């Protein structure tokens, strides 16, 4: 495949000397791999910022009564925590970082279809982030509406909502352009011989994601612009005093924001598929079923937004239809889980850290998925609506699902991206700590919600004290494990090309090239003459 002797190796994308030097060699680079790292670093930065905010919230909830902040500060904190984690970390998620890095490599191309547009998307991402940050630190204080910006409160509050909403609009634009770029890349840039059904399954999941990004984001974009217009021009689209309908806002918001959950989770599922196939040392079970389930989730996920609004005022028929469609999403999701399990069956499993991370993902994601059914069914949802149960479910899916998959992918592709290997033992200990900490933090919230503790309050009744204390202690375990994981990755050591080019015995195209890859990935565009996960005859 590649010349193993280092004398023949081209300079990697990390070392490559181009027209620019220093920081400009990065922020002016149109290389998809450098852009991917720009995303990766910015996303991890925002993730850590969101983590700190989460820790402060948990600290406030350690005991009943006011601990470290009052109600207004708490409202602002959960809003900004949501904005940061959702819009700046997990919606770009695995697609912007690992998708950008891996799509061209896994389909045998030199770059994405529109490299300059790709860089422009990152600039829009940063611009959106800066606008939100300015909104937090200027005007009459950070927004206190929750990340959903529900009208009419978002029209009435004196806090600085306009900038946050506009920032989210700009971020949406960045997401649209990334999705557009990926769709065109996948259609036009596949290497000769790579038909659609020879693409790695991570690419399939990103393909589904890209369509959601493209087709759902504009709706929330225009909705956010209408909120801005309501506040600045006094139009009253969603203001009942001027004839507007706040429930209409909720519909428009969730038409995007429910599919956005699939923007977060689909690439995560794709990465988990890659990891499980590689470490099971078997070909994937049910390739087409997994590929199609990605598209099915993308499609059905578009039609279920109403399940966020069971108590907002909708007809009985609408509620039942939305509930039914919500249950339908469980089918393609379960197809994936069953196929992962079947792939492992009789496999020669190699127990490396990325595989453990994938196992943690499946376990946590299943709890998240099953509790989703409780929320998807109208009668039980009415009972737990707006309680900590929802918070727990959401974090099981988005942090325990997409977030853990993000770190799983990072551990899996780290040697490829940087040519370095982390300490595997510490990576495993970090995962165990994170797993314990995660469940200690969020599992009690299910019970709290069932007992009736509402979300979004800085204070609670004394009977909720024990479980909240447990949850806060869990958040400390979780945060320290995350720091351990990140420090371990930063301390990774350079390996020889023999060790790093294909450390896991992967079979997709990225493992046929050097680690880290050269600027154009392939010296010669490969011709694909085999199925994506066929075992190599060594």
């Amino acid at each position, binding site marked *: 495949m590649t010349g193993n002797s280092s004398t023949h190796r081209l300079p990697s994308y990390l070392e490559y000397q181009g027209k620019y030097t220093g920081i400009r060699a990065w922020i002016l680079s149109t290389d998809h791999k450098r852009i991917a790292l720009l995303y990766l670093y910015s996303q991890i930065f925002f993730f850590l910022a969101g983590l700190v905010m989460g820790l402060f919230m948990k600290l406030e909830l350690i005991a009943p009564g006011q601990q470290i902040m009052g109600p207004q500060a708490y409202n602002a904190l959960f809003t900004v925590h949501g904005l940061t984690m959702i819009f700046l970390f997990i919606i770009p998620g695995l697609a912007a970082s690992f998708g950008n890095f891996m799509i061209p490599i896994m389909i045998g191309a030199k770059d994405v279809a529109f490299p300059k547009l790709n860089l422009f998307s990152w600039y829009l991402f940063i611009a959106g982030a800066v606008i939100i940050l300015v909104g937090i630190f200027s005007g009459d204080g950070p927004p206190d509406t929750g990340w959903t910006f529900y009208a009419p409160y978002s029209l009435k509050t004196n806090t600085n909502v306009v900038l946050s909403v506009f920032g989210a609009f700009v971020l949406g634009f960045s997401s649209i352009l990334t999705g557009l770029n990926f769709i065109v890349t996948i259609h036009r840039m596949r290497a000769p011989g790579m038909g659609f059904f020879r693409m790695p399954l991570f690419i399939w999941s990103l393909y589904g994601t890209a369509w959601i990004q*493209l087709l759902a984001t504009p709706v929330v974009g225009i909705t956010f612009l209408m909120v801005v217009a309501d506040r600045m021009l006094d*139009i009253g689209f969603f203001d009942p005093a001027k004839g507007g309908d706040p429930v209409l806002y909720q519909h428009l918001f969730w038409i995007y924001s429910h599919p956005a959950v699939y923007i977060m989770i689909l690439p995560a599922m794709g990465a988990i598929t890659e990891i499980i196939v590689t470490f099971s040392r078997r070909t994937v079970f049910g390739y087409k079923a997994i590929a199609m389930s990605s598209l099915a989730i993308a499609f059905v996920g578009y039609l279920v937004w109403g399940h966020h609004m069971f108590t907002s005022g909708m007809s009985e028929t609408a509620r039942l239809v939305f509930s039914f469609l919500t249950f339908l999403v469980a089918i393609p999701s379960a197809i994936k889980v069953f196929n992962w399990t079947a792939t492992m069956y009789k496999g020669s499993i190699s127990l490396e850290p990325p595989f453990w991370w994938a196992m943690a993902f499946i376990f946590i994601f299943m709890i998240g998925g099953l509790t989703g059914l409780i929320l998807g069914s109208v009668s039980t949802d009415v009972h737990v609506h707006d309680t900590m149960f929802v918070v727990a479910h959401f974090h099981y899916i988005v942090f325990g699902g997409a977030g853990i998959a993000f770190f799983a992918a990072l551990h899996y592709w780290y040697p490829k991206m940087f040519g370095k290997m982390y300490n595997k033992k510490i990576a495993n200990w970090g995962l165990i700590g994170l797993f314990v900490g995660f469940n200690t933090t969020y599992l009690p919230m299910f019970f709290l919600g069932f007992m009736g503790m509402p979300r979004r309050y800085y204070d609670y009744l004394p009977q909720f004290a024990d479980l909240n204390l447990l949850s806060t202690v869990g958040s400390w375990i979780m945060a320290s494990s995350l720091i351990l994981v990140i420090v371990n990755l930063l301390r990774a050591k350079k390996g020889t090309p023999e060790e790093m080019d294909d450390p896991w015995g992967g079979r997709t195209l990225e493992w046929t090239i050097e680690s880290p890859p050269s600027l154009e990935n392939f010296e010669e565009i490969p011709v694909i003459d085999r199925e994506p996960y066929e075992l190599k005859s060594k």
Partner: protein
Amino acid sequence: MEQNHVAHTDHFDPVASKLGMWLFIFTEILLFGGLFIVYSVYRYKHPVEFHLAAEELDVTIGLINTVILLISSMTVAMSITALQLGNKKLTLILLGTTGLLALIFLVNKYFEWGAKIHHDIYPGSEFLLSLSKGDMLFFGLYFFMTGLHALHIIAGLALLGVAFFKVKNGSVNKDRISLLENGGLYWHLVDLIWIFLFPLFYLIH
């Protein structure tokens, strides 16, 4: 970096750029789609007020603007054909005409809005706040949707302006026509959205 990698960034695939443009047009349609939903819901809720408010709009000026945009769509389509046939001069004349028509559209819009604002009809005005909720919503939607459309006219104008200069200096030519074609596609979209806005605000009674 680009210097050493001409093949890398200069990779040219007209099918890809057209595909990209069509996808972008989808997103624009969905952007306005959200507004069309809002319009339908509020029209359904306030049929009488929407009816009466619509009679305040000047059909003549709306009709003139519709005709202007239709002609501009024709001229941009002709400019693409002209460039395909290798007639650079005619391409530039037709593109210039398109731009001129777009400017006339904006000037008309300016006077139309100006007259409304002169009569104290604009979002948040005391007069409008004294009217019914349906009136407020109608004029809110009118200003927001035609305003957003006008922004798209300006964006299209900028895009065609870039195409104009690239045709002039030869970097967009018979064999590399994508930018002009995409500019034309975008312009048709802007035109098409107006074709929906015109009846929704001016004609339905």
